[in-house]
């Protein structure tokens, strides 16, 4: 059965159409959720897409986390609902303390857009079909993607390091971390854009593997 996936649209979201498109391609029933609403309309999963919410002013994600819908997202997350933050969405979830750590300016001080290889380090609902060690090619595009955490080893020991840059660390992230989850594993965030890697015409399909929680549930036998 296909899953209803809500894509949160904030003022300044840019990749929400891309997310809708990609989610539909992996078999979900995606719909937009509006930042000013306080509920999630019963969706099965939530994606916080990329973009520049509130212009990324002050800090990326800093202003978006106060939107009314974020209360509902936090509650959904606490109840174990799958939540994925992509790029700016990752930044929003960190600012909202739904994910550990913080994202700050790339060490290069420049925005960077290119395809990178990431290695899967742990399993969670969003990459359910992949085994740790799998390497995927997915684009990144961000100016503030340097992941900072005081204890990256502790995070890894807790199984919360989801993805690492496999060879090229494009932003100076600590311990090459490209994606993390919360302790329970249902809330995940990543700087790469899986929604930009779902169509062979647009640079590969590796991103599909990172949208597993949106794919139809296997039919019950």
């Amino acid at each position, binding site marked *: 059965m296909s899953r209803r996936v809500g894509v949160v649209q904030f003022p300044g979201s840019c990749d929400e*159409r891309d997310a809708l498109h990609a989610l539909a391609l992996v078999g979900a029933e995606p719909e937009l959720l509006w930042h000013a609403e306080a509920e999630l309309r019963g969706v099965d999963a939530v994606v916080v897409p990329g*973009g520049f919410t509130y212009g990324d002013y002050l800090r990326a994600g800093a202003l978006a986390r106060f939107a009314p819908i974020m209360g509902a997202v936090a509650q959904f997350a606490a109840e174990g609902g799958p939540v994925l933050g992509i790029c700016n969405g990752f930044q929003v979830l960190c600012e909202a303390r739904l994910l550990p750590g913080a994202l700050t300016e790339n060490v290069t001080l*420049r925005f960077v*857009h290119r395809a990178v290889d990431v290695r899967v380090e742990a399993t969670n609902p969003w990459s359910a079909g992949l085994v740790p060690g799998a390497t995927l090619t997915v684009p990144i*595009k961000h100016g503030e993607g340097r992941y900072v955490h005081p204890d990256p080893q502790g995070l890894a020991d807790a199984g919360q390091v989801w993805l690492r840059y496999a060879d090229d660390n494009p932003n100076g992230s600590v311990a090459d971390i490209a994606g993390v989850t919360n302790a329970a594993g249902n809330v995940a965030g990543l700087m790469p854009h899986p*929604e*930009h890697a779902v*169509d062979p015409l647009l640079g590969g399909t590796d991103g599909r593997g990172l949208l597993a929680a949106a794919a139809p549930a296997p039919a019950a036998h």
Partner: protein
Amino acid sequence: MATSDRAADPTVPEPAAEPDALATDLGLTSQEYQRIVATCGRTPSTAELGTYSVMWSEHCSYKTSKIHLRRLPSRGPQVLVGPGENAGVVDVGDGLAVAFKIESHNHPSFVEPIQGAATGVGGIIRDILTMGARPIALLDPLRFGEPGDPVTTRVASGVVRGIGRYGNAIGVPTVGGEVDVDPCYAGNPLVNVLCVGVVARDGIQYAKAERVGDVAVLIGQRTGRDGIGGASVLASATFDDNADDEAGQAKRPNVQVGDPFAGKLLIEACLELYARQLVSGIQDMGAAGIACSTAEMASAAGLGMRVDLDRVPLREPSMESWEILCSESQERMLALVQPDRLDDVLAVCRRWGVDATPIGEVTDGDRLVFTRGGAVVHDAPAASIADEGPTYDRPREPWVHPHAHEHPDADEPAPVDPIADWLALLDHPRAADPTPIAEQYDSAVGSSTIAGPGGDAAVLRLPGADGTPGVTLRGVAVATDGNGRRCSLDPAEGARQVVAEAARNVACTGARPLAATNNLNFGDPTRPPVMDAFATAVDGLGQACEALDTPITGGNVSFYNATGGTDIHPTPVVGVLGPLADVTAAVPAAFQRVGDAIVLLGASTRPGLAGSLWLWHVRGRLAGRLPAIDLAAEVALQRLLGDLADERLLASAHDVADGGLAVALAESALRGHRGAEVTPEPDLAAHQWLFSEAPTRVVASVAPDDLAAVEAAAAAAGVPLTHLGAVTEAQQVRVTGVGALDLAAARQRWQSGTARLLDGP
């Protein structure tokens, strides 16, 4: 006393104090001032002088270029909207139309590269938005000084950062562009930006009032003092209250700070207004802000407009009326709305967090009336401001390049080591890998970029008019081209070749060139040779566009590009757009498969070192007579490319331009991570074969099984086909009898040129 009586009458604008002096300060000639007095029938007010001076400035009125631009071909069945509106719109089939236009932000980008370039991006995006279209792509043709100079490093890195900052944050992908460097741009960079938008054929909006009583709604940012005088270059120094105190005068910056976040909200709010058919006319506010948008919309309809300046939300309440009228504050639009739809319009804007304020209404008659504090501060015929400004036929004297009559094909000695020259060419920013720039841009947002920066043309899969990606296989290819050095040698021939090259780039992808836009970057038009170069370049553009059936649907003119009395090269930049029926058939520029045959389509290689990158970059010489382009042969080549792509007979196609076959072969090899083995034509010097820039040539690779079909098609089309060799596994481009270019070494040079431009030595 008559004057004080008049001043006391709140229905008649108070005359400006010392109007003649103010007019002069504003850059108006005495004849222009006399015309304003005659039109008003009285001494104009300060606000009126402000409005006229900005609207009659070169930037807004095209007073110098108008009589020449009229000669450009602008019609065709494909053209839904031609020059005169904010952007041209062409029909691309399936009920979809595409709006596109190019604009420059050259001067501000030198003063404040980041913000200057950023606001340029915002400005052209709003022109596309004004047409009812969703902006879906940007291209950025750029010109800087030579790498290494600290000023150039600051300007180039800042401009790229600014374009990225605005384009990335507003969610419009930057999918292409071009870069060149030349000392003439060191103090006057060129920052041109082309924007493409998609709109339903029946959803096009017009900047025109429709009916009396419609409410004028100001949408977007509050109006501030920024950019006042930015439109009329001459005004900025003295357009100030305390103009008599020149030394102590706070000179206002001509630079604005753009707000891509506000721009993004404006896009979404406007698109929702269009989708719900809530506006009856809309105009963006660029140069001359409120004055310009009201005058143009009223004049276009033969109606008047009355605006209460007290209702304009201001960032600084102390602003004078003329400042409010002429402010260039960014991210604003003026919409005309039927009174019964006003509440809906305000609600849509509120939902998007965009300020919207009714400030006036469309009136009967022809007057543009502005009031402040209950008194009329401006009352003049809208058409006199917007459409009846002065036009000039400025004196011309032939533009003669001092070295245009030399013969480098005959007298330039052949290189001892052509491979070394080949390597040297690859790190010139014109030929180098643009990745260090392109990487700073989001070219992926929108999920429509089939081919982004790096190819001959960007290829976009068209989204639906609502922005939904992936709904059709239909696409468009877009490319920009300009070549100041060649245009400096011969403005008319150079311009013809620029158009041909832009269209050829589009054709290489398999798309059919459909229409063009142009940005005419020139020096000081009061210098007769510059004026002549401009006029002859316009003729060249027109001839080529006529021949290629790519009418010019819009564009921009940027004059006064000069540093310390020295003009830039005449630099017309042309954007060409063409539809593709099926983006899965788009042809890449990179070699694809080992064993494919490499052929040259189009003219066989002739001597052509005049104005070439080799002559300039390796020999330090700009000289020669450009070989004339055969436009009929060009048309045949471009048609053939489309036909071959439709049949999926081409594995790759890449236009031969700067750096000749040498650079074209190297690029296809480097991008494809394949080598090549090629044999030059026997009766040509090796360096001519490698570096000649004779036009109308394309390097294509073809699967061996398809070669006979390609040969037959070329023969039937009357397009010469020359066998060059084959794609190989070896990481080198080997040229029989000359030597081999090692791809590892080549890649290193190729990847360093652009980085040097941005980072310095």
